[in-house]
């Protein structure tokens, strides 16, 4: 009698742990990864939305390089101290000659080759993958960047789904 209780209890406990772990994996619990805390309270909503600055004005390499690029710190300073847009934290970085340690939101594993320029050349808008940054705040990754998601779009647009297209 007692033995069967014990075994039953053990099975239930193991089941609970397995379910718990499975839930941890399946639920979108990676908030901090999808919308990490940035060193500066930079707002895409303000820059791209309210001010209407084009994405490629700051991410200027997206159209000609595999990487989109971040604006150099000095580039921020073309607008900032002027027009009454003083930001103490930003000026501190400039003064100390330290780059701002932004936290990456969108990243792909090393075995994936993702060229920005090809996707822009194909006429995709940035929002296709990066979402409407003019509306969402804080900046949040809303796609999981898994291979199936890439393939869905590639199939739909009838572009190559050969392994070597991305895994070079």
């Amino acid at each position, binding site marked *: 009698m007692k033995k069967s209780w014990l075994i039953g209890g053990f099975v239930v406990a193991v089941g609970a742990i397995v379910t718990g772990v499975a839930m941890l994996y399946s639920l979108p619990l990676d908030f901090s990864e999808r919308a990490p805390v940035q060193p500066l309270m930079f707002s895409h909503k303000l820059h791209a939305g309210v001010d209407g600055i084009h994405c490629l004005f700051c991410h200027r*390499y997206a159209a000609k*390089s595999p990487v989109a690029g*971040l604006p*150099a*710190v000095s*580039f921020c300073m073309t607008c900032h101290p002027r027009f009454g847009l003083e930001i103490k934290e930003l000026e501190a970085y400039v003064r100390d000659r330290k780059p701002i*340690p932004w*936290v*990456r939101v969108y*990243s792909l594993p090393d075995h994936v080759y993702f060229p920005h320029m090809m996707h822009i050349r194909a006429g995709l808008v940035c929002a296709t993958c990066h979402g409407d940054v003019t509306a969402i705040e804080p900046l949040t990754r809303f796609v999981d960047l898994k291979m199936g998601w890439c393939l869905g779009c590639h199939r739909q647009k009838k572009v190559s789904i050969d392994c070597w297209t991305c895994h070079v």
Partner: protein
Amino acid sequence: MKRRTFLQLGAMTAATAVLDGCRPANEKLIPYLVPPDEGVTPGKANYYASACRFCPAGCGILVRVSEGRAKKIEGNPDHPVNRGKLCARGQSILQELYHPDRVPQPLKRSGPQGSGKFTPISWEEGLAILTEQLKTLQREQATDWLALVTPQLRGTLAEVAASFMRSFGSPHHVSFDLLSPDWLKLANSRSFGNQSLPWYDLAETRYLISFGADFVESHLSPVHYGHAFGQMRQGRDTVRGHFTYVGGRMSLTAASADRWLPARPGSEGALALGMARLLLADSLYDNAAFAANGLRPETLLKALERYDLPMVAQLSGLSQDVIVEVAREFATTRPAVAMAGETVAFQTNGAESVRAIQLLNLLSGSLNRPGGVYPDGGAMAGPENSFGDLLSLVEVMRRDRIRVALIHGDPVHAIPQTTGFREALARVPFIVSFSTILDDTAMQADLVLPDHACLESWGDVVPLSSGRDKAIGLMQPVVTPVFDTRQFPDVLLATAKRLGSRMAAPFPHESYLEMLKGTMAKRLGARSGFDSETTWVDLLRRGGLFETSREQGKGYRWVAAATVPAPAEPRFAGDEKEFPLHLQVYTSPAFHDGRGAPLPWLQQLPDPMSTVVWDSWVEINPKTAAGLGIKFGDLVEVTSPPGSIRLPAVIYPGIRPDMVAIPLGQGHQGGGRYAMGRGVNPLDLVAVKIDGEQPQPAWNATRVRVTRISEKGKLVTVGHPEGSFRSELIEI
């Protein structure tokens, strides 16, 4: 440990591992402070053509540079030396640039000499100290108390060094390399009255016999000849060139041969003459060649009478049948070519043996013929006896007649101890090193003025033995200098300027770069105006000046006054009873003469024959090893008359039983974290003065004995100890 403690620790470890997984995996994105220059697009690479100066071969390279950082090096397909190929050493000069132990700025010695204690100083102070030392010499009318020791420089750099010493007024400029082909120049000028190095047309030949020339690993221009060897074997539809290798140790080159003749060390010259005699006796020689060279077969046969088959077989330890067979093959296949290499040259009878081997090329009519041997197109004058220059400098230093020594390179490591160079150098009161890393020589220095790395330098690279055409590679900086270093010739120019107008007179140029442009303009000469920057940029873009116009230079022709080659009986340091084994020191494919040892990629490159990494080893024939009770990986002591070293043993079937071999390059006292204290330097064993002989670069003429110390050799091999050489396939 108690059960309870164990469980607690286990639980803690598990919890830490799980919690660690909860941390966000986001990387940091670090922006530029200031946007990069025009032409730099992050994520997109730029490719720059440059030239490799690691070894004298001078291959052309293409460097991939992204975001201003050099990332990868490959061969330049347009460069006539290497045609887009590159060796491991060329690939790894990247690590010279990024080496963690590079000298970042000038250093001044702060501890006792040789202690390796230095204080960083500014260039201003460094140059001031050097100028002060030189001015003192000038004031005391003792300008010949200055010495300059460099590797064998070529091109504009050689001019700068020579003019600096000339205008300062010191004759003591020694340009010495352990492996420099002085012996080839000497042999060629004795036989052909033409100092220029040979270029072997391997791609077109049908029969190649190499007397100890390891052209796949190190001989003259390994990438060039490796590529040509591939052409010789597989580049033609109907012909597969045949290759015979003569030499006591099976090198990588020998392993690529169809036939391996492990001749006794020092007997190769006699073997070549024995073959020549067979050719003459059977009238298999090329008649036209005799006429063209003003020789008569009968007289030559008479002169070679001594080298009859039984005598040659006995000297070389090879069977008569094999010698006859190889001689016949060589004589009846056209074109056929014979190469002489370091293994032969670094014996006491080296120069004459090399001449004997070159005589085979004359007999088979291979001089100045496709598939034969031509004088190298990149004409270069240079010392024929730099070893003699070195010894006289040692003598001068020993007599305290040198007060300032300027040293480029690492002679303390790459010169045998028995030359007395190190002791003599210790007597020099002021030593300046230009090394990029604190190598063995820089450790002895009073002042270190670090040179740029290869990828930060300007320069012209005149390749060695690379073809009939003239080719001059151009080195250009592919990145902005990582540290506060300055190029060696620019330091010489700056010092000359500080020493006054008389000293600066031979250097009208503002910088080495300007001087280089001037030299290239002179080289282009009247053919095309060098008026614009366009030409210069175009040269840089292509990687150099490659001339395809066939200006037929003078070919090789036997000099009437030349004697018939007569290699003397080889002599060896050490008594045969006490030291029963011949020592061969050979070039490691990774380290060259030792300059590659600081680079970790080369340290972890397994030796192609023994698969050993990160160490030195001695190769011993299985029979010899069994007799001495030595097993694979045992620690052994190798003793020669001048010294002894301890290193692990590799039981190697591809070596004569009366011979042991140790690769060059390891055993550094300095050279950064990857080279320091790793392995041993076999040059410590090499005797330079051999009884009854003039001191000469006979690195392979020393006898040794081997004794077993323990089983703890700590040998690291990549493959199975005998994986890369199946002993049952090698017969000796």
